[in-house]
């Protein structure tokens, strides 16, 4: 199946999908390490395990298209083209970070890249995707917006309001659900009476499809179809990606927790989206194991360099930085 699908996708795109997933993984593993060493303050929500969703979604976008994000936003920003140095600096609260140390991990963003911000309120970013899509349609600029959100956020009012409004106003939005089966630490079946989030799409009047969220090609192809649909003026769609986060909702533990079994975590880790894809790429003779390793090494060096940069960067200064950026001053 994979080989057949890959045959429709150019080698350049396949390699791009791979590289962006590895970029997320290596940045996140490093961030987790630094958080456990208390070099990164605050809460950290790692994207490890879900890489295929952000990457499959973002590679299907054009430059200038926008995305909205969640608490777990590092992966979305990397997939949209985010740079390691300002990301790592932001995680560490440095003034050279993407948000000058004022937002941190949970508010990582780069509006210049069309990444409209990670959001600390579950579901809070989804209405912004609708607003950005409204602006795209208003300006007839042929851009579209993709909203990333989790299964848990589909239970919150803002999501419902945004999905309904997007469909009622026929806006160019793709609703990209990361269903990792847990709303924070609570299993999906305890808080939802349905198994598939995609079932909700029909209630808003948009198509909803389910894809294997550990298969980056499957995610990319579904995203491409939804993106094309939005760009052609055919309105919103929803894609539900069945995925899994390898670490806890927050922090760097994977095993020995009361809300999911170690066996379950291990089973999902067997379906690591990067390992699965590298096996496919090797089989299809697109990327050998050695070539893949070289990519990992190259990216790891970039991560290490970003850590050095962040650690050498100054902290923001309370006497000068506290009160800036609260308001936009008149020109």
């Amino acid at each position, binding site marked *: 199946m994979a080989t057949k699908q890959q045959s429709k996708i150019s080698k350049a795109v396949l390699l791009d999908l791979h590289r962006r997933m590895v970029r997320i993984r290596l940045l996140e593993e490093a961030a987790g390490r630094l958080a456990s060493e208390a070099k990164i303050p605050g809460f950290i929500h790692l994207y490890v395990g879900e890489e295929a969703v952000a990457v499959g979604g973002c590679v299907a976008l054009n430059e200038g298209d926008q995305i909205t994000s969640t608490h777990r936003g590092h992966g979305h920003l990397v997939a949209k083209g985010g740079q390691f140095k300002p990301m790592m600096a932001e995680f560490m609260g440095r003034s050279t970070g993407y948000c000058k140390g004022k937002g941190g991990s949970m508010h990582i963003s780069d509006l210049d890249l069309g990444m409209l*911000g990670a959001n600390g309120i579950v579901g809070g970013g989804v*209405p912004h995707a609708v607003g950005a899509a409204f602006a795209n349609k208003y300006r007839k600029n042929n851009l579209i917006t993709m909203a990333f959100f989790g299964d848990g956020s589909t239970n919150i009012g803002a999501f419902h309001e945004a999905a309904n409004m997007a469909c009622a106003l026929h806006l160019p939005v793709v609703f990209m659900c990361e269903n990792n089966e847990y709303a924070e630490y609570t299993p999906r079946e305890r808080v939802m009476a349905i198994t598939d989030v995609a079932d909700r799409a029909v209630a808003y009047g948009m198509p909803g499809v389910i894809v294997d969220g550990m298969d980056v090609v499957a995610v990319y192809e579904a995203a491409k179809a939804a993106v094309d649909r939005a760009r052609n003026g055919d309105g919103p769609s929803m894609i539900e990606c069945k995925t899994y986060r390898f670490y806890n909702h927050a922090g760097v533990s994977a095993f020995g927790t009361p809300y999911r079994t170690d066996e379950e975590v291990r089973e999902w880790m067997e379906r690591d989206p990067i390992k699965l894809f590298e096996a496919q790429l090797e089989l299809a003779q697109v990327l050998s194991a050695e070539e893949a390793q070289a990519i990992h090494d190259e990216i790891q060096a970039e991560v290490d360099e970003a850590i050095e940069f962040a650690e050498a960067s100054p902290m923001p200064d309370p006497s000068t930085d506290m009160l800036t950026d609260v308001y936009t001053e008149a020109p």
Partner: protein
Amino acid sequence: MTVAETETEERIIRYNNAFTETLRELLLDDPDIFIAGEDVGRYGGVFQSFAGLNAEFGDERVVDTPIAEQAIVGLGIGAAAVGLRPIVDLMFMDFVMVAMDQIANQAAKMKYMYGGKATLPLTITTTGGAGLGAAAQHSQSLEAWLIHVPGLKVVYPSNPYDLKGLLVSCVRDDNPTVFTLHKKMLGSKGHVPEGLYEIPLGKANVVREGTDATIIAIGMMVGEAEKAAETLAEEGVNVEIIDPRTLLPFDTEAVVQSAKKTNRIVIVHEAVRNGGIGAEIAAQIQEEAFDYLDAPIARVAAPFSPVPFSPALETAYVPNAESIAEGVRGVLYRNV
């Protein structure tokens, strides 16, 4: 039209029509401006404040939305973040609470938490105030909830002229602003020039100069304070009246200056006294001008209950010229 022309000729229109006219002139002025909200399109708004705009500017620019306050404000945030200049309407100020996450957690904080990169030229319009028998969920004055939030600007015009100038400033401001109309004032009249003009945000207006005491009044209470001033003048009391116009950022300097001049302060608002903006204003004045005060700062505000329905209760609930005059007599020790 030149300034000279507008000044020579008194053009009297209603507060509500000033709002509609300003929106129309703004839509004509800037193609990045659009309006979205419940009933604002085909129907023209529940108070007809948007009448005719959809017919003139079309569904693209004057947009009927679902009854979905979070998504309405979120729509404005997303559109503003990518460069449009949205005006979104929340119909009743009470509905601000429904959208509070989008207003306080999202719109207000986005610039700061994204390191200054986000610019949100977003205006949220709404109607506050009691007096129409609309009861507890359609009559509140919730400005104190909003002024607690860094990143917002909060504006409350007390007359048609200020309404126009302040609305233009809100819409042209690059920050999220909440612009509150008083629903009982919609039919009130005043001089409003044609064409767009700005009144700077954060600047109070000295409505009446006086020497014996200062009344700081907000929204519809400004008119009541003016009536109270007439009564007090007959008693030989010469009061100064300050209308802050913008509640956030607040013109502390203007009220402190007045406190240093009159030495007695009465703050009037329609919201309940407890935790109201009067508490903040009083605190700011005592921080800056404690030694100038000849009496404790008085607050004339609503009692600590939801806004009641029955006209018998509602009339007694909202401060008026009489209760304001009584407040002034209090700080002058004339009512003991």
